[in-house]
């Protein structure tokens, strides 16, 4: 055909060879520059972003899982602590009860003891007093009698027996 000659007819399907050359060189230049300087960084950035997003998601998931686990753990601990506290409270209540009964029992025992001791000492005192009184009253009575009679009763034994009998009669009369 009549390629690129000035003023000649052009067939639209016949390329102009200078344009082929220019197109090849220009496109090659474009490819060289962009494929060397731009596109690798773009793919790298793409990957980095995918990593960042996926990594972020993964991290978030891990954090979530950890949080859940901690929550579970805390819940378990809390429940444990609650039962522990309840147990301690129960124990304390039981302890208090037993202490109270203990103290009560001890106090009762003590009071019983004190009362018993008091009674005993009272009885002893009474015994002593009775005994002293008996001797004294006996002596006094004998003195009085001997003074009245003017002479000492000869028979000691009889005298003692008389006094004793008298006092016993007195006592039984008093107790009655």
């Amino acid at each position: 055909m009549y390629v690129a000659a000035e003023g000649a007819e052009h067939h639209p399907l016949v390329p102009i060879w200078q344009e082929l050359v220019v197109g090849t060189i220009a496109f090659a230049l474009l490819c060289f520059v962009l494929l060397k300087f731009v596109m690798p960084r773009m793919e790298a950035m793409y990957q980095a972003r995918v990593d960042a997003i996926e990594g972020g998601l993964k991290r978030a998931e891990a954090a979530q899982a950890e949080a859940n686990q901690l929550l579970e753990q805390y819940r378990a601990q809390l429940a444990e602590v609650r039962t522990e506290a309840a147990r301690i409270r129960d124990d304390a209540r039981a302890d208090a009860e037993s202490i109270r009964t203990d103290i009560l029992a001890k106090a009762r025992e003590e009071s019983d003891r004190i009362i018993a001791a008091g009674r005993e000492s009272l009885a002893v005192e009474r015994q002593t007093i009775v005994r002293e009184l008996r001797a004294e009253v006996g002596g006094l009575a004998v003195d009085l009698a001997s003074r009245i009679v003017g002479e000492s009763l000869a028979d000691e034994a009889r005298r003692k027996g008389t006094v004793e009998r008298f006092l016993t009669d007195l006592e039984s009369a008093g107790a009655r």
Partner: protein
Amino acid sequence: MSGQFIAAEGLPWPPKVDDFYLPDLAGPWVTKFTLMIWLAVGLLIIFFMATYRNPKLVPSKGQWYAESIYGLVRDNIAREQMGKDGIRFAPYFTVLFCFIVVTNLFGITPGLQISPNSHIAFPIVLAAISYVMYLYIGVRKQGLGRYLKQSLIIPGVPWPMHVLLIPIEFLQTFIVRPVTLAVRLFANMFAGHLILLVFTVGGFVMLASDNIFIQVTSVFSFLMAILMAFFEVLVALLQAYVFVTLTANYIGTSLADGH
């Protein structure tokens, strides 16, 4: 009337093939077409260098635009057509896509008004690269014999059919594919420019008419020209997409093991 003033006498009517071959600016090497090619190359290099000078994980606006284009080609063309293998071709496809889009859009850019791809030389260059690429990749991946066998012989066909099928398959893979690749892009841009010429120049010719009715009708011609200009935007993007998608598809079949 001003219309008559603009529509001076020697309007080129009807539009002809010669309208696509403007006088050289300075010899056959420096023409409007070669300058537009350099302009496209320059614009793309500047755009990508500017937007990707300092890429960040959280992109700036320009970086986001550049990445959107890359993402479109990477995910919607390369991965769609070729699977995971396609991603390593995504950079070249992106360059190819951008180059075709920009040169196509020159067809409706004020002041340029014609796409370099309406000269078949440029689509031929691009199609030839795709052609060499898919042949080379096929032969390198599978070896010459296996690649030819895979390309020409359809498995599971009774052998007498091969007498018919092998020439058809040969024609298909080694001749029709690259030719249609180049001609499709060229013809779309050629036709698009012709349509715009028909409606705009036709509008002026109608305005220059003596008949008032024809002068009024020219309004529709201009409206149609505007409509077709928008349509041309669509065609420009679509043809770039088709070109790159088919290239990806051809390379994909070269890589594939089966037929």
